[in-house]
């Protein structure tokens, strides 16, 4: 029976910051479900509530009203939740501590697991994870985060995911800081993660073109609401909502005219 329960189930989730006159409704009565092993993309401009929704999924924020269920239950124990739900963020440099070597920080990530493996097994698993993201372990031996390039650091974040092996990955703009070649690389690794670990991926981006490639389903967000959702082809080729149309028109595409003079 367990497998039939949706991974995430949002029922009328509302999230409000501040109170009185200054109250800002970041998430406005949003309802959706995300099934096991699905890739869903949340797409929208800055300030539309994408990242707030990500924080709710990670159990970092709780909705002011409505219910947000993970596998049919409320999120209560954060540590237990994080064993199964892990994030990848936009800026890897702010995720790693400057003062420790990368390897020691990857070693620290075992701390979230219920049972720490033996020292030797830990080292082996780190090596495997590094190889999985195409980095030879000696390359980062004794190195600190600032000694690597942005693309390499982004892969370190992904290596961490290979170590922890969560069920669900929340990827919050993982490719917005890197160039086109590295982006194609990172997408490859994300797909590899999904295949190897049978993961559910929630992909958050403002780039609808990117979302179109990776996802099974697209959610278009605008001012705290999901204004359109459906299969990528459906949403990008036959958009119904005006905000989706706007978003699509704003993306520079090599084959279509775009603004200007």
């Amino acid at each position, binding site marked *: 029976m367990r497998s039939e329960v949706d991974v995430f189930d949002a029922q009328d989730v509302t999230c409000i910051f501040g109170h009185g006159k200054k109250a800002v409704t970041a998430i406005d009565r949003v309802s959706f479900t995300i099934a096991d092993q699905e890739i869903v993309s949340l797409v929208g*401009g800055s300030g539309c509530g994408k990242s707030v929704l990500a924080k709710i999924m990670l159990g970092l924020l709780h909705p002011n009203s409505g219910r947000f269920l993970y596998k049919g239950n409320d999120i209560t124990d954060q540590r237990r939740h994080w064993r199964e739900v892990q994030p990848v963020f936009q800026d890897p440099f702010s995720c790693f501590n400057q003062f420790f070597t990368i390897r020691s920080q990857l070693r620290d990530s075992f701390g979230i697991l219920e049972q720490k493996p033996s020292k030797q097994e830990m080292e082996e698993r780190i090596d495997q994870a590094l190889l999985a993201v195409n980095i030879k372990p000696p390359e980062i031996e004794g190195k600190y985060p600032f000694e690597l390039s942005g693309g390499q650091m982004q892969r370190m974040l992904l290596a961490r995911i290979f170590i922890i092996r969560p069920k669900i990955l929340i990827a919050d703009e993982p490719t917005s800081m890197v160039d086109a070649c*590295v982006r194609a690389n990172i997408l490859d690794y994300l797909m590899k993660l999904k295949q190897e670990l049978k993961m559910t991926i929630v992909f958050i981006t403002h780039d609808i*073109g990117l979302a*179109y490639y990776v996802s099974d389903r697209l959610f278009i967000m605008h001012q705290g609401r999901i204004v359109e959702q459906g299969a990528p082809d459906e949403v990008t080729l036959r958009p119904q909502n005006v905000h989706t149309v706007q978003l699509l028109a704003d993306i520079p595409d*090599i084959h279509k005219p775009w603004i*200007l003079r």
Partner: protein
Amino acid sequence: MSIFEVDDLHLHYRTRFGEKIPAVSGVSFALEQGEVFGIAGESGCGKSTLVNGCMGLFIPPLYPTSGDVRVAGESIMNRTPADVRTNVLGRKVSMIPQGAFNSLSPTRKIKDIAADMIESHEKGVSKKAIHDRLQQRFRLIGMDADTVLNEYPVRLTAGMRQRCVISISTLLNPQVVIADEPTSALDVTTQKAVITMVFDMLDKGIFSSMIFITHELPLLRHVADRIAVMYAGEFVEVGTTEQIIFDPRQPYTKALMGAMLSAEAGQKQKKPVAIEGAPPNLAKPIVGCRFAGRCPEARPECHRNKQDIRIVGNRQVRCDYAV
């Protein structure tokens, strides 16, 4: 005469062990009046080093090796940083940086930061005159001058902050504007608004030509007249936008186009192709073509023979085998 010329520019970084690392090698190009010149390339290929070189601003450990940069025929090389700051930056060449937030002091209002720009270049301008000029300029480019000028940077949105930075850096009507990834930190809707504003300024003659640096090729396709593709400190292909985007000849340019994404019918099956491997280590002497190690079309002689820029049709290509 070209408004901006870069002539066989070589730049290097000096490490604390006295090693010289060539970051930019043999870059030459010229900008005509009203032209937008795009530079594309992956991170670490020397785009930003080239920007510093184009401004004539050399702050250690960056040093010029050889070559010349001329604005309207006048060389801006071999000057002291103080001289560059007062006489070159802002008037001849101005830069739009990537992170607007890092460029604005959080404790000062926009109008004070903007006033600095005028005061540091023109002596003895009255407060009233500065105020009027700011009002006029901000209105001209379609911003709400009264509110924006009186705000602190933190109170503005990211798009608004970037617009302020652009207006401040073009206050003195520079001849050439260098935009280094001006919109990478913005979302697509804001990006479009900011780019539209930049082109509006170009049309109004606030500045006369622009160098636009980005790794986002679809964007470059719409903003640039000509594009140069940079790899490991060298230009590998220079041509018109149509040539570079739709008909690339050099293997690296081809690979770069293959890594591009676009959301349209039937494109979902066409996976973006990543370029395997990493660029060469510039600290070590390089024999042969710099892209040979990653090139899908590399021949044995590519690893031995240095490739030079040659003219194919009306474009420049750095590959002996490109046709």
